[in-house]
């Protein structure tokens, strides 16, 4: 019984990281994905902030799922999500103002991040708290990994640094466009290309096996 439960939880968790990765598979939450990934540290912070909001709001939504009337459920979700975003907003201000300035309006905009509302509606409202929060943790981790994948590439190419540490020394001419908005699209496009190439190759392999 316990092994079954653990296995189910593990599937729940892994769904967000790999099979339904919010950035690379579902292509959700593109606004912060493109905007704040100019450095690895920004990407991680944004990912963690979103993860916290995801877990907390999915937990609360799930706990209240039996007493929430259908007609007002979206309003309830938004109020819950906005609450945790406000809490995160204060927490980041308390931790570091530099980070707060770097993330700017995108902390407040977590409220309208479709990953969170999507999870609340599609998963948390139909599952018990533990499953909902496990799934949310996986989704959050997947989102953080996605942001980090962009942030690392953009920071290395566009600034010659990783987590603020210089990698190449004085002679490096940074590829500035990579930290500008177009760079976000280039890097995201390349990652999506890699993922869809993998998916196609897998399909092709399966097709030949069956034949």
């Amino acid at each position, binding site marked *: 019984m316990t092994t079954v439960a653990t296995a189910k939880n593990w599937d729940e968790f892994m769904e967000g990281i790999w099979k339904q990765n919010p950035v690379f598979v579902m292509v959700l939450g593109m606004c912060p994905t493109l905007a704040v990934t*100019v450095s690895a540290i920004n990407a991680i912070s944004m990912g963690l902030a979103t993860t916290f909001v995801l877990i907390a709001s999915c937990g*609360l939504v799930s706990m*209240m799922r039996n*007493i*929430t*009337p259908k*007609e*007002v459920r979206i*309003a*309830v979700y938004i*109020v*819950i999500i*906005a*609450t*945790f975003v*406000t*809490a995160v907003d*204060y*927490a980041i*201000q*308390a*931790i*570091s*103002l*530099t980070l707060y*300035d770097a993330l*700017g309006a995108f902390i407040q905009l977590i409220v309208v991040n479709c990953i969170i509302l999507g999870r609340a509606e599609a998963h948390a409202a139909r599952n018990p708290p533990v499953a909902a929060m496990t799934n949310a943790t996986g989704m959050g981790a997947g989102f953080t990994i996605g942001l980090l994948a962009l942030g690392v590439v953009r920071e290395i190419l*566009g*600034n010659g640094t990783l987590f603020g540490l210089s990698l190449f020394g004085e002679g490096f001419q*940074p590829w*500035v466009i990579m*930290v*500008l908005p177009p760079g976000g699209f280039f890097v995201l496009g390349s990652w999506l290309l890699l993922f869809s190439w993998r998916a196609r190759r897998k399909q092709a392999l399966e097709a030949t096996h069956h034949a």
Partner: protein
Amino acid sequence: MIRTLGLVSGICGLIIVGSYQGTYDAVAANKRIAMERAVFKVVPAARSIEEYYALEGGSIAKAGASAPAGAVKFFAGYDESGKLVGVAAEGGAKGYADTVRIMFGYDPACQCVKNIGVVSMRETPGIGDKILVDRDFLANFKELDAGLNAEMSALAHEIKTVKHGSKTDAWQVDAISGATITSRAVGKAINDTAQALLPKLVPNIDKIGSKS
């Protein structure tokens, strides 16, 4: 439905108030540290700082909870012996993306602007934010002339940003090539604050000459 909505709002209200209360001190401390760090950066000789208001009519008052109308806030920096070594003030002007807020140091001895630091900006990374690192640009603020005119009513020469490579006078700021708009915002921010602050401050500078 009403019960559920009431419950949700109640829980959420508690969470928000809790996190506000819990982080209030840390946030206030962070803001003060950031401000002080900016002041010490532009007045490097200072060991301690005091916050003042330069008031309409030419008097100077210690900063309190609320600013009187027309007051210009500034920071006085003192060395170990409590002697005034410099003044720092904040200014802002529209840059390329948003308002560029800077802190600049004023040296009463040479009547010039020395050193600048950025308080907040959203300029394009790699282009506008060069104002922090570009050596030629920062060289403008080694001794930028901010002397007053004979009547002490305004600056003798307006501080102005000029196109890259065309600086001829000590009160001009040589722009960064490719980041002219941000450079211009820095010049304007300094000029606006200096025009408002210095005519009130300079005639009274002796009053804050040593730490009280």
